[in-house]
């Protein structure tokens, strides 16, 4: 471990053992019968939460760890914090560690905030004197001056969290470990916490940070680690790692979607009706380049390509398209009649129809597509309701349903910093 390295993990393996209830009963029974209680903790099922991970973190670095649920992020944090011990490998750390894994863990509901500050401080490794010195600061940061003598059980969850964060952060650690705790804060407290974390950064403390908020990770960390299935997949510049991660997730979902789709070929159920005299045999969503896709960015275009099969010649027909958002509201709907196109001739046999939108201009979320072929009066020959799905995904979290083209303009007196 070199001088500037403060956290060093070598070949860490952590397996979680799952005991089924039947197995539990067997061990208890056999434990009593032949006294095998010491031997018989044999796991039925082993789950590798962390699989041979080595990490070095230098003093003053802010490290973000990202990954899907169950990728081993939190386990790594707990191993660094010393809360759980790995099955294999060595952990070396230098300096006092404060772990914000759950705020207010160890608070006793029946006693006052003031007493809890002292007890929590001692649990976190401070002396009485150190807590006394920091007491005012802790209460002030938590904004709890008026409530500090009340039992903690009377606190709102926000107050409880603020107190927990305030105590943990004022332990003045050399290494701060933060696990997703910022996700639960109220709107005014989260920026305050981020400020405090930035202050830690300026003071040259080491921070290890787990979050699903990829924007925050990309913004405040010096290096980002991407974990998957207990292994480190990538480590490097935050933006680069976050982008690769996002891309991998998209690909994974595309694949999953493809698989789901091939599993079910338009089932006949509540979501499909009509007499099928003209049948929609396939609907494929493609991007403007003609590649079949599931996830689109808001600026991209989409092409809805339908194949139909008419069982007889028709002269009364039209095609309709509807786009619905995840809440079931129609975002857009149109059909050939609305657009002043009157069906004249549809020959018996198979045909192709495509509906192109050059730019989607929608906000993030899931969208469903309804497609239909129907008569002038609206009697459907075949109607697919909510059977086709796509997703809009971008790193801008604007709200609403529609994203018009837009542009901000400011005069010289107003400046912004790019984040």
């Amino acid at each position, binding site marked *: 471990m070199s001088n500037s390295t403060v956290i060093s993990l070598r070949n860490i393996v952590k397996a*979680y*053992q799952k005991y089924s209830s039947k197995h*539990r009963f067997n*061990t*208890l029974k056999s*434990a009593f019968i032949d006294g095998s*209680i010491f031997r018989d*903790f044999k796991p039925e099922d082993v789950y590798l939460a962390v699989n041979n991970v080595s990490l070095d973190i230098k003093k003053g670095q802010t490290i973000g760890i990202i990954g899907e649920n169950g990728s081993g992020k939190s386990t790594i944090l*707990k191993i660094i*914090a*010393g*809360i*759980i*011990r790995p099955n294999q490998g060595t952990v070396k750390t230098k300096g006092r*560690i404060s*772990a914000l*894994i*759950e705020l207010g*863990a*160890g608070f*006793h509901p*029946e*006693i006052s905030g003031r*007493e809890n500050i*002292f*007890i929590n401080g*001692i*649990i*976190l*490794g401070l*002396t*009485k004197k150190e807590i006394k010195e920091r007491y005012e600061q802790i209460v002030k940061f938590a904004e709890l001056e008026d409530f500090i003598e009340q*039992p903690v059980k009377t606190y709102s969850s926000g107050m409880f969290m603020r107190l927990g964060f305030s105590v943990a952060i004022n332990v003045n650690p050399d290494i701060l470990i933060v696990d997703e705790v910022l996700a639960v804060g109220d709107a005014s407290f989260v920026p305050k916490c981020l400020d405090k974390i930035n202050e830690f950064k300026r003071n040259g403390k080491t921070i290890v940070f787990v979050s699903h908020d990829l924007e925050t990770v990309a913004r405040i960390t010096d290096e980002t680690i991407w974990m998957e299935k207990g292994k480190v997949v990538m480590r490097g510049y935050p933006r680069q790692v976050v982008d690769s991660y996002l891309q991998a997730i998209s690909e994974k979902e595309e694949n999953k979607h493809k698989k789901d789709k091939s599993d079910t070929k338009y089932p006949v159920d509540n979501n499909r009706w009509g007499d099928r005299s003209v049948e929609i045999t396939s609907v494929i969503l493609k991007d403007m380049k003609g590649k079949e896709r599931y996830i689109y960015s808001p600026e991209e275009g989409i092409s809805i390509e339908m194949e139909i099969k008419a069982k007889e010649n028709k002269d009364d027909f039209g095609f309709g398209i509807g786009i619905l958002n995840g809440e079931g509201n129609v975002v857009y709907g149109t059909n050939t009649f609305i657009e002043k196109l009157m069906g004249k001739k549809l020959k018996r046999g198979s045909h192709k129809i495509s509906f192109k939108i050059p730019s989607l201009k929608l906000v993030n979320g899931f969208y469903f597509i309804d497609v239909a072929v129907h008569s002038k009066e609206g009697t459907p020959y075949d109607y697919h309701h909510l059977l086709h799905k796509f997703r809009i995904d971008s790193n801008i979290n604007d709200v609403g349903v529609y994203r018009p083209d837009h542009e901000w303009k400011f005069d010289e007196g107003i400046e912004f910093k790019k984040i």
Partner: protein
Amino acid sequence: MFIIDKIKTIYRSRLLISTLVNRELKARYRGSVLGFLWTFLNPMLLMAVYTLAFGIILKPRYPNPELKTAIDYSLFLFSGLLPWIWFSASIIEGGNILFVHGSMIKKVMFPVETLPIMTVTANFINFLLGLPILIIFFIALGHPITPYFLFSIPVMIIQFFFTLGLTFFIAALTVHFKDIQNLIANLLTLWFFATPIIYPFSFDTIQKSSWIKTALLLNPLTHIIEGYQYAFFFGSLPHYKKLIVTFIFSLVIFFMGYYFFDRVKDTFAEEV
């Protein structure tokens, strides 16, 4: 070495232990009207119930001449009941303590052994707070307090190690086998009646049956409780030879319990 290592850990955690004990005692009766008074009221009420049941109705005190009246019996009963409450409360709470503080074990790094130590210590302090009540009762009911009273101190030390050792076992085991919690309640009832608390060791039935007598002699609590009864009630020298054996046995239980707890404590964060 394990023993020295652990003594060091406990010494380093002394502030944490004392704070936890303090909190435990404070929080226990917080919110009740009588608050701290319950520390005294609980054993008194229990004693009243047992005096009524056994001192007046069942009378298991024959042939001991010192237990003739119901008043004498109630004082004898108090001498054994107070340490029993310390013991049983520690064991019952010990079966729960790791679950009660589960969120702490999972999220904060701290020496987990402080939790069973806290339980036994908090109940020990409760016991100590009961002693002034005991003295007041003895004086008010005209029973002399002798210098032999001080012999209760070594007995307390023995009981402390014995109780803590068992609590370590129970706390660690219940994490993996929750069934033990239910078992404990019943076992403790059996243990209570298998210890000379509501009857003296010199009770007829015991002395006449050699197997009951042997069973009672094998019960470490028999000697511990008797130690208190000698010190408080009879005012005579305790049976020190038996107590020394009990002490050694208690130390063994203590270290075995602690060792077992230490061996499995890495699994707690995953199981509670």
